[in-house]
């Protein structure tokens, strides 16, 4: 997922539709059943047919079902309610009930959540199953609990995907191929440090300028999960995609703490179960989208490069030793216990 600003990329502030569906969704599909009396406004940065929104629609359906039509979600896609960092502020202050945001802006949200930057490390998880195991397990619970008292109740880890690298000049198979290239990244210290370690020049351009910048070669490439590269149409101006899977990018479902605590036990039970169901659905949709995205883009003439990831793992090892990044070593050790 993308950092903090409205249109910052990652989960694509500009949003987009999933490749499969044709045209923008009707707003009726976003608003919950009109008869529901307890409504949660939930904002996200992806497009109406993006994986975040599809997952939220599943949760909306389940919530109406589990609460017998009493509760529902009104979904606001496409950063319509603001960028990710903005929406976290809104949820914590109660100007909007819920949001689904990537973990990018979390470390700077509050001193209580600063150790979330551990999740920004390169090759932290070998695969999605490992990520689920850690994030659904003790470490994940510990991280989510750090939001207690900030005005936000963090409910669980959904998924954005593994971030891959695109460019327009050549096939990149090894870090040596990347040397000296200008790569647009998120405004994130750990990510930028990783690209510097790899020999690239990271640059946090605003998402709004990405297209002309890629076309005019102001930057040579950018990085995002495949689902975003497809749905935000980045592939239209990029010829090569390297499957480096450098970072695993989760996202988090958040709800205003007071509102959550104010629910009756029955309501909270329905809400929790619907959130869990939404999470399962969203992860499945994300995985499907990632696997179909490659085929759709290959059909459009994009060249995919499968890389030997062990070379990249080796090349980014020193990021783990960079003390200036302030990575929480205890937490890292706990994650390593699971990932080996």
């Amino acid at each position, binding site marked *: 997922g993308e950092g903090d*600003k*409205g249109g910052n990329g990652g989960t*694509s502030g*500009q*949003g*987009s*539709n999933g*490749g499969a*569906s*044709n*045209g*923008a*969704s*009707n*707003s009726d599909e976003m*608003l919950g059943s009109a008869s529901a009396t307890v409504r949660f*406004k939930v904002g996200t940065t992806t*497009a*109406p*047919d993006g994986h975040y929104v599809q997952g939220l629609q599943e949760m909306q359906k389940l919530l109406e079902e589990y609460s017998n039509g009493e509760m529902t979600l009104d979904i*606001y896609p*496409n*950063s*319509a*309610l*603001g*960028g990710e960092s*903005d929406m976290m*502020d*809104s949820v914590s*202050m*109660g*100007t*909007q009930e819920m949001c689904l945001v990537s973990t990018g802006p979390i470390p700077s949200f509050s001193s209580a959540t600063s150790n979330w930057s551990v999740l920004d490390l390169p090759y932290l998880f070998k695969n999605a199953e490992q990520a689920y195991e850690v994030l659904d397990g003790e470490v994940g619970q510990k991280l989510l609990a750090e939001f207690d008292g900030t005005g936000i109740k963090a409910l669980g880890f959904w998924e954005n995907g593994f971030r891959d690298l695109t460019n327009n000049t050549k096939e990149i198979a090894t870090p040596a191929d990347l040397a000296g290239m200008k790569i647009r990244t998120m405004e994130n210290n750990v990510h930028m440090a990783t690209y510097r370690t790899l020999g690239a020049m990271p640059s946090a*351009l*605003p998402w*709004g*300028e990405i*297209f*002309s*910048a890629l*076309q*005019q*070669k*102001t930057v040579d490439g950018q990085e995002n999960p495949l689902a975003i590269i497809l*749905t*935000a*149409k980045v592939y*239209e*101006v990029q010829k090569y995609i390297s499957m480096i899977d450098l970072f695993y990018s989760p996202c988090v479902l958040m709800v205003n703490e007071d509102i959550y605590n104010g629910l009756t036990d029955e309501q909270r039970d329905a809400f929790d179960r619907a959130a869990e169901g939404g999470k399962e659905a969203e992860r499945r949709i994300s995985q499907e989208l990632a696997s179909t995205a490659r085929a759709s883009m290959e059909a459009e003439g994009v060249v995919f490069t499968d890389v030997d990831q062990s070379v990249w793992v080796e090349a980014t090892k020193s990021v783990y030793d960079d003390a200036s990044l302030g990575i929480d070593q205890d937490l890292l050790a706990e994650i390593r216990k699971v990932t080996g």
Partner: protein
Amino acid sequence: MAAGILFGVLFLLLFVGVPIAICLGIAAAVTMVATGNIQYLAAVPTRMFTQVDNSTLMAVPFFILAGNIMAEGGISDRLIGFFELLLKRLPGRLACISVVASGFFGAISGSNPATVAAIGGICAPRMIQKGYPPAKAAAIAASAGTLGVVIPPSIPMVTYAVTANESIIDMFEAGWVPGIMLIVGLCIANVVMCRKYDSVDNTAYPAREYLIRFKDAFLALLMPVIILGGIYSGWFTPTESAAVACVYALIVSCLVFRELPVKKLYKVFIDSCVSSAVVLFVVSMSAPFAWFMTSENIPAMISNAVMSIFTNRFLILLVMNLLLLFLGCFLETQSIILLVTPILLPMATAIGVSPIALGLIIIVNTSIGMITPPMAVNLFVASGICKTSIGAVSKKIIPYLLLEFGILLLYTYIPILFGITI
């Protein structure tokens, strides 16, 4: 209900003369309270902040500064003076230069206010010097600035393309059609309306004169070469080019032409700060207003209500345009595209308008929206540059507004009448 209070309060406050920015803020806050949403009030300061905490907006203060330096430091006079000489037989040439230059700038920049600041900042002071009334000069710069997002590349086109699941490249390519229609239309209008300010110059200058003027203008001519060439060749982004333009203008004005002593320069910086502040304050305050409208689904409700009345496809297209024009008076481009596209797209497809054509109809409308008061960023930037009142510019902008809307209708109906698909 909410929409009624929101617009009622807004119009009342605008009428009595409360600063436009504050009208937007009070209207939003009052409506939040009146509809029982006191918890929303904290969104007012946060939206104000995030709206101006925005990299793409940075081009505005930078180009306002660059324009002021160039005007005060003698660059603009030399630069435009040279083109005026070349075009001496064209009446209204200064206004036409503004339009064509905005077109060129639009071809590298994706933003309207940046185009007004960049081109208006250079051309408008010269127009005023030549006897164009300041409000007229501002109207010319503001209307030419609508080319910024119509001519590709364009940030709103990217937003539309991903919202409607269309190709960005196709949108960019199709954008040239309305873009060129607007350039031609604005130039013709300016030749007609501005002939009295700079009429045909029949003096026969010796070839030497051209050479002298070219030599004199050489460093000034490098300015557009650096800005346009620098972006085309990928040296820098449009926003960065604005900072480069400032530095180049400073070096040439202060060190080469020596027309900008420190005291005058200090004044230039203060003026640029104040102009940027008043412009961006309105932009900033429009955010809580737009956020509240979004959060309460007001644009979607208005669109659904209005569009459901009509069945005739010619009427539907007309009403679509009028609706977009109305929304453009109050909201900025991004909100309109995000909120209205899902409603208009199925309707347009049903009456045989392609999604790309609809996209351009929306883009041109929202671009025109930047010259329709009260929320009219192009007018704010232009009247800031020309030091004239928003009321005076609003009057002078009317012919341009009608012209652009006429061109928009031509663009909307010609394909349908002649069975062309875009």
